[in-house]
């Protein structure tokens, strides 16, 4: 499946400035792994260890937090949209 991953500012130094990266994947985990394979330095920013994201990394699939779906195992359909979003203080 072809999916778009939206890249937030703090990660664009790793993607050579790209704010959108397209990858092939069947699950969120695969999509992120493919992203990490394309850009060196990405993996340690996203993952604490394989299968576990850093505490302050939030991932959304089509506007839904993956923790309400199937976490990293959330399946991906063609045309889905993944966002990487840092956690934000309240208000």
């Amino acid at each position, binding site marked *: 499946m072809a999916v778009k991953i939206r890249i*937030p*500012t703090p990660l664009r130094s790793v993607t050579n400035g790209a704010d959108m990266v397209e990858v092939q994947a069947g699950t969120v985990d695969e999509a992120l792994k493919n992203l990490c394979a394309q850009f060196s330095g990405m993996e340690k*920013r996203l993952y604490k260890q394989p299968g576990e994201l850093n505490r302050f990394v*939030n991932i959304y699939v089509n506007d839904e*937090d993956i923790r309400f779906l199937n976490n990293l195992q959330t399946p991906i359909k063609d045309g889905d949209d993944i966002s990487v979003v840092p956690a*934000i*203080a309240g*208000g």
Partner: protein
Amino acid sequence: MSYVLGLKCRECGEKYPQKGVHVCEVCFGPLEVQYDYAAMRGKVTRESIESKPRNLWRYRDLLPINGEPKAGLSSGWTPLRRAHNLEKVLGVKELYIKDDSANYPTWSYKERVVSVAITKAIELGYDTVGCASTGNLANSVAAHAAVAGLKAFVMIPHDLEQGKVLGSLIFGPTMVRIEGNYDDVNRLCSEIADKYKWAIVNVNLRPFYTEGAKTFGFEVAEQLGWRLPKHTVCPTAGGTILPKIYKAYQEFIDLGLVADNAPKIYSAQAAGCNPVVEAIRAGHDLIKPQKPKTIAKSIAIGNPADGFYVVQAVKQSGGWGEDATDAEIVDAIKLLARTEGTWTEPAGGTTLAATIKLINSGRIPRDESICVCITGNGLKTVEVVVDQLEPPTSIPPKLDAFDALMATYQAQQAKTPAKVPAGV
């Protein structure tokens, strides 16, 4: 004179200069202001603080600004009152209300964080400020931006109380209602901050913004006569204020301004949005996000960014967490009004209701000092009590009509037993 050294990631330790960045570029962890505490010794004293004007800037040596304060010169220094009537009702020995429902100019604890953030926005050269808000923050940003002559964009969830909406609009910001809950607003704002070059106070100014919340704790300590309450109960939404009150206490202890009485801090949430309290109860620091469903809209944040630090502060202090149902929240709002003359919003009702439950369950002993953090004002949320209060009787302007009314009133009084305040 500023004691600020720079910013440092709380997770991985990476250091950054003072600028508009909110997360660590290495690990996404939040950034924290670093101070030169050694240089403060002997210079930041009770006397140096007492010599400054009675507003939140009297603690400026412990706040992250480089020049003069540019906002909030009449904010902070809200009342800390001994609550004798509540003490009797709850059967406790020493209870205080720290009352930010009286925080000027928009009546919530948010003046503290916004005063620092707006000052910082000006220092960093921004001409536009913004926020993602559950209501109170937007009110405060709109008011302080108006005074400072900055453009303001405030983003809120679509379903807020009218008082919270008008309480921003009156100051003339651009307000955008987002069709979603606060967590949707938050996410959008992080993308807006990326794209537009604005100072979004709780996004890219967050490290500076959050420091302002310490002034709540500083004031409690100073107003108590340079002493800390043993137990502090505080509401939690995104998780800014609780860890910062605890940090304020620790800074005063470290600077030798107050004795270390091993203060404990407790998190209060609405039962319909209690991800932090659930984590405290379960004994882990992983916060499971929720979809909020509660009348306490100002604290309805289902995915609290700093929830982890709330759990840490609570654990480290030996405190606990407690939640309150919507009915308990309304009862507590009424109880506080009818005993202490303070009308708070649901966030305050939540905090008092949680305090009562913590006392009744024995978590907070009845014979030790307790501070209840009231962080917002009830006049902004009339919706939550409008159906809960007896409407006034209407009569013609005639004395006999009034006499007739008094007769029924007295007959009623004779029948009903002495009133016990609700919520106990």
